[in-house]
């Protein structure tokens, strides 16, 4: 089956592979160590999946803000997103 119609590029392919691998890893983690909802710095109880979602959504906004507000290299935004993701997963 040709996937030409989806207009794949290497960066977007890598991006979706990383997302898919993260989802698989989260699923395996959940099966091995089921999550317990807890309350961190966010004003609500979150499970591991909730924190992952907040991390991904926030990372998307960080990257958009970087594009809209600066002219610097996008990799800085990716680095900030990784730090943000780690903070959310650990402390939220």
């Amino acid at each position, binding site marked *: 089956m040709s996937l030409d*119609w*989806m*207009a794949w590029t290497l960066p*977007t392919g890598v991006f979706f592979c990383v997302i898919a691998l993260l989802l698989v890893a989260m699923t395996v983690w959940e099966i091995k160590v089921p999550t317990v909802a807890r309350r961190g710095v966010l004003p*609500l109880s979150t499970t591991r999946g909730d924190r992952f979602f907040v991390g991904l959504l926030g990372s998307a*906004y960080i990257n*958009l803000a970087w*594009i*809209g507000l600066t002219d610097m290299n996008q990799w800085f935004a990716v680095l900030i997103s990784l730090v943000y993701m780690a903070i959310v997963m650990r402390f939220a």
Partner: protein
Amino acid sequence: MEKTKDNRAWFLVIPVFVIVAFSAIIPLMTVVNYSVQDIFGPNERFFVGVEWFKEILHDERLHEALLRQFLFSGLVLLIEIPLGVAIALAMPKKGWAASLSLVLLALPLLIPWNVIGTIWIIFTRPDIGLLGATINGLGIDFDHTAAPLDAWITVMLMEVWHWTPLVVLLAYAGLQAIPDAFYQAASIDGASRWAVFRYIQLPKMRGVLTIAILLRFMDSFLIYAEPFVLTGGGPGNATTFLSIHLVKIAVGQFDLGPAAAFSIIYFLIVLLFSWLFYQALQNVGKGE
């Protein structure tokens, strides 16, 4: 009785997963792929990185359309949710009158969206429309094709007429599910009408109102057909909402790259606000 845990049940989710993959995930992936390329034809495309995102984020017309969209969705929620709950509270609880009310309320929901726009074009025409001619007959100059405020009033009226019934039906279903014992206890305690609403009916409707608010927010934020048919986004750009602006870029100018970048930003806004509403409504009354 203890619940049986059988992980084979996950196989039952596969059909839903396949449908969602074909209807949402694969198209979304394609849009992401388009958003980083300049597309000239099926086999003629060039990687441009985040250029389209930069262009879209600095587009003044998009900023204006976004503001209009927030104003529109805010007004929709402010009007439709209280109005829907009020109508549900006032509706007959049983008998033929309840059935008749439900059927009449459901009628606007059955009409195709583009037909709704056509109905309101005719309804508000200053020369032959029942509403337009009546208002002009009263000496008020009303023309939704020429005055931005009139266009906004017409679009809001059309939206409220079309979608408040959905809120009513959901709120009514929530009210019907409250057991009589709650009302009897409130009556014994001498609770006022307001107290019954505030401490029994409103908390018990939380689930359905969450769905109503989410549906109305998402739908109103994505609105296209009705205002496009009624005003075409005009006069000027007065009723050009995000989706109308997006279609102008994607179909009118055939700029697939910028349109894809626009779509992703649009999707992220809807996702963020839906999540915020969901969390806020789930945590109401829990002290969170």
